[in-house]
């Protein structure tokens, strides 16, 4: 795994005339798991898409190892940086093996078609995601959790040092969410892959992130190790949520407990008043 430097300088991203991310500077820590969090429409997915060159910046730039990703050949970026979008599209009737094989696109060319190396990469991706047994199955037959693992396998088959994932846990139930985040952690710890993901669940984000980026209104409000930056004040500022932050009994990372207007025990209400 070579080390890489992915960063945004003074980045402004827009849809139509609306700026969604404004004058943002960020550097993605190499070899770590970075999680971007924030309320809906705070620009977290937009930032991820900008980092993956899916959006052309209105201002500033995203650089990979010192070169603007917009100026690099797209296929050269694709050899270093992979992305799993929020809603990837599976063609009709495609088998798991063939879908995962499509991740090999940037490593093939007009004259260099399928090779033994591609088979090895696909086998490794299936193994890492525990989907080898599904190789011959039609994507449409799979459960949501299986399907998401297959998509991750496709992104892994691309064999990039950086992997960006846009809300990969969205359609999964809680056990599959944890399973998936464990899998991404395995990949990071075993091979040093840099992982950047957008997550909705703040508690899982705090547990699995080495580095957390909290966004509001298209800007970064706080970033750093979750233990250092996530406290009640930050959560209130980012999400507008009154809450308590306690140590997660399993991991010791910040655990956010919302206050809400109902159900608080009388002694808690007194301490808060």
């Amino acid at each position: 795994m070579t080390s890489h430097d992915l960063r945004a300088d003074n980045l402004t991203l827009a849809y139509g005339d609306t700026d969604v991310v404004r004058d943002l500077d960020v550097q993605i820590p190499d070899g770590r798991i970075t999680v971007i969090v924030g309320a809906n429409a705070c620009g977290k997915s937009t930032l991820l898409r900008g980092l993956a060159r899916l959006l052309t910046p209105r201002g500033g730039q995203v650089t990979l190892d010192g070169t603007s990703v917009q100026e690099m050949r797209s296929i050269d970026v694709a050899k270093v940086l992979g992305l799993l979008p929020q809603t990837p599209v599976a063609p009709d009737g495609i088998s798991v093996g063939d879908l995962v094989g499509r991740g090999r696109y940037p490593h093939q060319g007009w004259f260099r078609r399928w090779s033994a190396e591609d088979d090895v990469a696909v086998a490794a991706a299936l193994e890492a995601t525990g989907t080898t047994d599904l190789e011959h199955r039609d994507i449409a037959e799979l459960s949501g959790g299986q399907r998401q693992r297959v998509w991750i396998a496709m992104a892994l088959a691309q064999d990039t040092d950086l992997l960006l994932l846009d809300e990969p846990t969205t359609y999964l139930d809680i056990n599959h969410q944890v399973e998936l985040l464990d899998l991404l952690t395995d990949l990071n710890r075993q091979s040093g892959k840099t992982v950047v993901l957008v997550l909705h669940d703040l508690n899982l984000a705090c547990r699995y992130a080495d580095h957390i980026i909290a966004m509001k209104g298209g800007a970064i409000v706080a970033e750093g190790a979750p233990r250092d930056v996530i406290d009640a004040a930050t959560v209130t500022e980012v999400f507008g949520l009154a809450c308590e932050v306690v140590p997660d009994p399993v991991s010791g990372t910040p655990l956010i407990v919302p206050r809400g207007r109902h159900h608080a025990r009388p002694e808690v209400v007194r301490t808060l008043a």
Partner: protein
Amino acid sequence: METPTSLDVPTVRGGRRQRRRRATVVTAALLLVVACLFVLTMMLGSYYVSPIDVITSVLGLRDDPTTDFIVRDLRLPTAASGVAVGLALGLSGVIFQKLLGNPLASPDFVGVSSGASLFAVSSIVLFDASSSAVSGSALLGALLTALLIYVLAWRDGITGYRFVLIGIGVSNFMVAIIGYIVSRAELYEARQAMTWLAGTIGQSGAGELRTLLVAVVVVIPLALVLERPLRTLELGDDTATALGSRVERNRLVLIALSIVLIGFSTAVAGPILFVALIAGPIAQRLTGSAGGILTAGLVGAVIVLGADLVAQQALPTPLPTGVVTGIIGAPYLIWLLATVNREGRGG
């Protein structure tokens, strides 16, 4: 990524080879069926010619003026245009469907064919055009209509849903104008226009047929080269970009190829309906996951040749090819609409 020591590479390689073998076998079988139908088309008619005579005459291995006249001058143009039109329709349809990720996104369904028809009918009725001028107008109509739909559907990119809906709207608009023009026409011209609109592979002149064959010979290899980027575009724009595919350029070139194919085939044979719509899904069923676009082209050729044989030989009165494909295609479309909407994938 590190390569773990105990990988199940054989499963991956075996699965891939098995799927590819199936696709290859199906494609080869279809090629054989096309060849047989091609020969059969030249055997049947008011005067029967044996298969041996057909083959030797086409290849120029014998010198029998009567057989040569029947086979090479009368029947070969029909058979050749059947193959070329079928290939063009099948390829055109499957490229559209994969590109826009929608089984309803067939170029004859979203108005490209009706645009070609409008121009062809106008040239017949309003300008009393020659047959090659009619073909030229049809081609021009296909290209302009496609451009119109592309511009109307553009909103920071093209989505299949918008393209199909706007295409259907444009199609209806064109059909309405066609109806108006035909209703205002003289009887003879109206009849000529209706014959053209029914779509028949036997109606082209030698010049148009040659143009179509050149287009097919040039465009098919190009389409096969672009199949690789097409496989990324099928996964959606974001994934395609992430894989390093140049999305807008590839999509534009592929749409252009598809339009050229449908434009040329409509110019030669008129609008033969439903072939472009059904060839791709049939090919997909036959080949499974590893199938390519060429298979869809071959399925198109089988359908067109088969439909023409039925239209010309099996029925008491010879009918235009388009009538038979319509009879096969319409029920499929109804089934497709029913099932696609059930799965919620219409758009």
